[in-house]
Every structure is written in structure tokens, then in C-alpha cells.
């Protein structure tokens, strides 16, 4: 069966490559390229794009028919699986690129702050509804929530403060305590960091000082990412380059334009079991740095003690 790819992420090689299947899920699988450190993903979805993704739209196909370790090769734009008649035609697929670094989101604007508040509220509602291990509100209430919330709360606060102060060492120390922490193949700590970077990239625009910090932090974060799963490491790698999933990217755009925020937030939260919500948590926290007052910390005096954030909310 030959399936046409609808779109491919900018990080996917266009010409020939050899790979093996690294992992398989119902509607996605990851490929480990022969000469690359990072994975690419084949995703069945009618909308979800990834920087490293090949998107196909097909009904009734389960990727579970393929097994990890199976060889895969692309020749002249056709991706083929060893011992399977399934192939994916990459020719003619549109190339998708995440535009988050181009947003220049201004969190000083009233509409952006309103969009942020709407999303934060939705997020906490959804997390409570799904009874997830992490609750965004708990991150700023020390000694509250699940063991995971309590464990991650302090480094998250430290990450925000250090980034706000352009203190890369402090930010990296905090990130180091989050990497690989939590359930799932992309642990919650990693998802928060990915979202956090999305927040920073959304706002930096052409601000050289901020861009320099993000790039430097990103480079070091890639090194730290050796402490987490290969799949998660791939997402962190692209996040460090300012490249995120379409759902996170659309939410950042929606907050920038205050257009269809609820819809974008719900779509972003639907990714995975908790990954989407964790990434949205990170995004919203990331949008709070470098802004006075910020949604989480209405006044500079409030920083370092996340407990005051709830007044604003």
C-alpha cells in the first residue's frame, strides 16, 4: 500500500536516507536515521505537524503492524519499510516549518495577557478533569499536589527566575532537575521545558539579548537531554532551534493574535495523555519571563515566590 505524505517537517531529509524503526505507537512511529542523532516521526493525523514529522492522512491503518528494528529507506522520495508493502511517497508533500521564532509575541499587551489567563484557566480545568499527576496551579504552591508536582515545583520556579535574570547557569541547573522527570515516553519535566522554550522563542522576536540567552540555553539543554529518552531528546533538540509541534505553535500564535485561543488551547492539550498539557504549562510559564508585570508575577516583588501569582489569575 502506498500512501502519500501530506506534509513533511523542515528537519526531515528530503532525499535518500536509511533508518530503522525505533518505536511504534498506534498513529505514530519514530525512525532512527543511520547517520543522525535525532529521530524523525511518521504521524497519522489530519492536522498535527512536527518539525521532524512526516504527516500522512489515512483511515484504518495501524502502524502497530510494523515493528521496532525494521529497516526503512527512502530513495528518490519514496519511504519504504523492509518486509512490508507499505510505502510513503514524500514527493509532492508540502514542507512545514514552525513560525514561532517569527511571532514577536508582546506579553505586555492586554489582549495577550487575557489570552494567557484564558488558557491557564482551561489548562488547570483540563488537568483536574483528567486527574493528571501535574497541576499547573500546584507548581506555584509549594508542598501542594502530587509527589511529582512537589518535586518539579522548585526547579520550575528557579527556571523562571534564572531566565528572567538572564542567568544561564541557574536556568540550566533548574532544567537539569526537570529533564526526564515524570511519566511517559516524553516525561513531564521535558514537556514543560519544551513548552517553556516555545514561550521564550515566541516573545524574543528580534531582541538580540533574549535570542542570545535562548540559543545558549538551548545548546546546553541539548547536552543535558542525554539524560532522557531518545524521543524526548529529539523534541528538546528541535525546541532549542525554535521548532515545535503545530499544536503548540498554533497556541502561541493564538495568544499573539488573541484569535481562537480556546480552540487552539484545547487542541494543544489533546496531544498525548499528559504531554500536551505539560507543554502548554511550559509555554504559559515561559511567556511570564521578561515581562513586568508578568501574568504569574504581577510585580517584581512577587518573583521568587510563586505563591503570589494566583492573585493575578
Amino acid at each position, binding site marked *: 500500500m502506498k500512501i502519500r505524505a501530506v506534509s513533511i517537517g523542515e528537519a526531515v531529509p528530503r532525499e535518500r536516507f*536509511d533508518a530503522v524503526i525505533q518505536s511504534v505507537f498506534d498513529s505514530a512511529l519514530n525512525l532512527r536515521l543511520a547517520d543522525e542523532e535525532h529521530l524523525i516521526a511518521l504521524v497519522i493525523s489530519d492536522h498535527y505537524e512536527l518539525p521532524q514529522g512526516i504527516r500522512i492522512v489515512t483511515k484504518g491503518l495501524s502502524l502497530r503492524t510494523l515493528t521496532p528494528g525494521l529497516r526503512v529507506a527512502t530513495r528518490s522520495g519514496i519511504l*519504504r519499510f523492509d*518486509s512490508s508493502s507499505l510505502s510513503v511517497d514524500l514527493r509532492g508533500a508540502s514542507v512545514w516549518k514552525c513560525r514561532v521564532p517569527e511571532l514577536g509575541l508582546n506579553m505586555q499587551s492586554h489582549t495577550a495577557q487575557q489570552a494567557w489567563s484564558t488558557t491557564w484557566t482551561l489548562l488547570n480545568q483540563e488537568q483536574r478533569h483528567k486527574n493528571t499527576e501535574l497541576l499547573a496551579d500546584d507548581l506555584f504552591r509549594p508542598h501542594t499536589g502530587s509527589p511529582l508536582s512537589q518535586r518539579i515545583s522548585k526547579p520550575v520556579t528557579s527556571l523562571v527566575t534564572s531566565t528572567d535574570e538572564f542567568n544561564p547557569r541557574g536556568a540550566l541547573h533548574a532544567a537539569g532537575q526537570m529533564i*526526564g522527570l515524570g511519566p511517559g515516553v516524553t516525561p513531564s519535566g521535558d514537556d514543560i521545558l519544551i513548552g517553556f522554550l516555545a514561550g521564550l522563542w515566541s516573545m524574543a522576536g528580534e531582541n538580540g539579548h533574549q535570542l542570545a540567552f535562548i540559543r545558549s540555553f538551548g545548546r546546553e539543554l541539548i547536552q543535558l537531554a*542525554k539524560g532522557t*529518552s*531518545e524521543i524526548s531528546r529529539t523534541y528538546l533538540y528541535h525546541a532549542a532551534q525554535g521548532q515545535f509541534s503545530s499544536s503548540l505553535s498554533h497556541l502561541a500564535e493564538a495568544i499573539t493574535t488573541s484569535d481562537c485561543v480556546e480552540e487552539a488551547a484545547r487542541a494543544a492539550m489533546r496531544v498525548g495523555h499528559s504531554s500536551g498539557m505539560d507543554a502548554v504549562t511550559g509555554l504559559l510559564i515561559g511567556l511570564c519571563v521578561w515581562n513586568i508585570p508578568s501574568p504569574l508575577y504581577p510585580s517584581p516583588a512577587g518573583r521568587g515566590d510563586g505563591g503570589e501569582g494566583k492573585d493575578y489569575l
Partner: protein
Amino acid sequence: MTTSQRMIKNLYRDSVSLMQFSEKLRALDGIQQASAVMATENNISLLVEAGLLASAVPPSPNDLLIVVEGKDEASVSAALDQAEAMLKAKAVDAGEDGVRHVPPRSVEMGLDSMPSANFVLISTPGEYAAAEARKALQLGLHVMMFSDNVSMEEEIPLKQYARDHDLLVMGPDCGTAIINGIPLGFANVVRRGDIGVVAASGTGLQQVTSLIDRFGAGITQAIGTGGHDLKSEVGGITMLQGIDALAKDQATKVILLVSKPPSPDVMKNVLDKAAKSKKPVVVEFIGADPKTITAGNLYGVKTLEDAASAAVLLSKGKAVKKFSNALPAKYKTLVKSAQKKLKKEQRYIRGLFSGGTFCYETVLSLSEALGKVYSNTPIKKDEKIPNVWKSLEHTVIDLGDDLFTQGRPHPMIDFRLRNERILQEAEDPETAVILLDVVLGYGSNMDPASELIPAIQHAQKIAAKAKRNLVFVASVCGTDSDPQSLSRQEARLREVGVILTDSNAQAARLAAAIVGAR
């Protein structure tokens, strides 16, 4: 209460699956708590803090860590066994490919079953071959076109497309090649070594590679170009690409080129390219004067055997000697004893060849030694045999010519036509020597000696009946590693009185010596 853990290597499950999995474990008898997380340092630390792990275990971020707390060791151990079984059962389910497998019937289907393939061998009837080659090239595959009857009008754009996309088209009518040690088409099993060959001649390639093996050296790659490649219209595209590839190949120390003389413009380009390769290049443009080639790193030679010898000498770091046209001393007694058997009227050589290049090399050699030689592949136009079915004086026939192969297999496979012709020559009182080539290797007849021997014996009987003797001279092209075994085939042919030489060139010289000065 007791806790225990197990690490499952390289296992990826999404959060929902792991959550459901943990719930199933918790529901087991005697189990209080269970957790399944990626074994990152931070997760391990969290489990230690939560009291689920007694002490930290080494992190392994791509592996799944299952931790279980239960009322006693038996419950915990059983739960972990069950956990592992559940995960493995899932893996087996995932391995069942619901897609029906069918044998590949196209290049694309072939790629489906072997996606990392980068090479295709096309052996369809000629009329379909170009289209298949084009498809393969567009899929990014190198092509060997075994098929013949492909026009130059089709060949040229294929080769141009391939060159522009850094791909190689070997052929059309490329009968043999050895790529990465794998014999393709009619090819011999030769040892690997440091000599790379590019040849526009199938049996020429087989002869040099087999002799290189016999001389104790080996082959890196043997690239066939097809017979039209060195014509002006094609421009030697494949040979030029082949030289480039071998020049870049670190395993190749010496390059060997084999062809009939190319068109002058192509010859210049080929020799220029070879000169720039910075490696010793032995050039056997069969029939060309070696002196017009030898210069710098280029070594022109006169026969396929000399080409193989020169390449082996160069690969061993030795100087290339001046090769002699003279018949080696070891054959001289054979010449005398053969001459004694012949009657005065037995004056002519009848060469019956299955290899086109062997035929051509023989015509050249005999012409030099004996003068006029009739052939269906003559050197001079006036030596074209008027009737290919009837020999005239010295006659050398390429039985692989299209005229003979229409509707029947190639004479390397099917010996019937040659055997009939042997009997026909035996009837001719002027026949002195029947000169043969025997080509071993993949694709060729699996036991050529058994095919030839009855005909040889029958021919000898025909001659004996007329109170004559016939002399059979042959060379066997192949190696002991070939499916037919060189030594086994040679031994059987010697048993019936065939005089064997080490190469085709020597066979021609020996035959010429027998019918020469008497």
C-alpha cells in the same frame, strides 16, 4: 511490604498505555503500588524519594523501569513476571504484519521488500529494458542492463540522466560485472583484492578478472559498460564514471580498462581521465597499438593476459615488464607433437567461440601470425566471411553473434550449435586445428566439458575415419571457485586430448604455431 524492580530494554509506550499498565499491576493480588516510567535519573530519584525504590539504580533513559511494591516477595516477583509477559505479548502482536506479501513483480515492489537496495539488474527483453531502467534511475537506483537490443537513442538519455544524478548505468548488453564481490550476470568467482576493472567487453572482463585471480591477486570492482559506451555518440559516459569511481575508491590500487578501441574523441577523454586518476592504469584497447597509450601512469598492453599480468605486477608494486608475443617455451613440444599428427592438406584453423572478445582477440592474433583470417567479426572488411555457416581457410566465428542466438540461448549456455559446427569442421579435410574457448562462471553452462567432450570425440572419430587427426586447442576462462571448477573442467578436456593454454591469447598463438611453419 517488599519492593522490587525490573528494567525492560528499549521499550516505548505512551503515557496512557503505561498508566493503564500500572493500574493493571496494582490490581494484581498482593500488590499495593506499581509504577512504570522511563529510567531517567530524575525518575529514579523520584521513585527513591517515594520509597518505591530502596536505592538508586543506574539510569538508562531509553529503557522502561517497572517498580512494584507488594505484601511479599512472591507477589512482587509474580507481578514483575506478569508485567514483562504483558509487555512482550504486546510486542509480538505488533510484529504481526497484516499486509499480504507477494513476490516482487516490479522494481518498485522489489524496493518495497528490500528498501535499502541501491542497485537493480534488468534482464527483460530489450524493448522493455529502457523503460525499466528509467524507472529504476528515477527511484535512485544504479542499473545494470543485461538486456540487449536497446538502441543508442534509448541508451544515451539513460546514461546522461544517470550521470547527472550520480548514478551508474552498466550496459545495455552488459553481460558481466562484479560489484562489492558479488558476481552479476556471466561472472566468475574471483578473490577480492585491489584491482578495479572497467570493461566494455563481457568476456574481456571475465578473462582479466579470472587471470588476475589465477595470478594471485584480486578485484575490488569490475564494472561493465556495455558495448556501445565508447562510441562517439555515447561518449564513454559509463567508462568515465567508472574511472572516477575507482579513482576515488580507497581499496582500488590499480585500474584496468578493457575495450575494443574507442572512437578517437572518446579515447582521448578516457585516457585523459585515466591519466588524472593518479593511480596506475592498465589499458587494453584490443587491437590498439600499446605504444600510443603508454605514458605516465598509463600502461598500454596488447592482450587480455598481458593486461591481467600488468595489473597484478603493479598491484604488487613491481615494474611492468615488456610483454613478449612469443609462444611460451612450455608449449613448444606440444606444437611439434601436434604438427606430426596433421596431414599436409590440413592447413587451417577453425575457431569456434562463445565469447565475442575472445573471438576478436583471436582474429587479431591469427591475422598477425598467419595473414588473412575470415570471420563474422573481421578486422578488415574484405575478411568478412561470405557465409557464416561455412568456414573458409582460417576462419574464426563468434557464435554469440545475434545471428546465431536468435531463438536459442547463448553458446556459453547451449552448446548444441557449436557442437554441430565442430562436427562440420571435422568433415573438412583442410581443418587442422579446432580452436575453442570455454567460459565458466555464473550464468554459463554448469558442465561445459560434459557438453563438449561427446562432440570432440565424435569429431575425432570422423577424422580418424578419413585417416586424419584433429588437433583441439582451447583455453578455459574461469577459476577454481567457479561453480564448474576450472581444474575439474580442464582435467576432463585434457583426458580427451584437448591442448589447453592458460589464456585465450596463448591458445591463439599455439594454434598459429601448429599450422604455421611446417
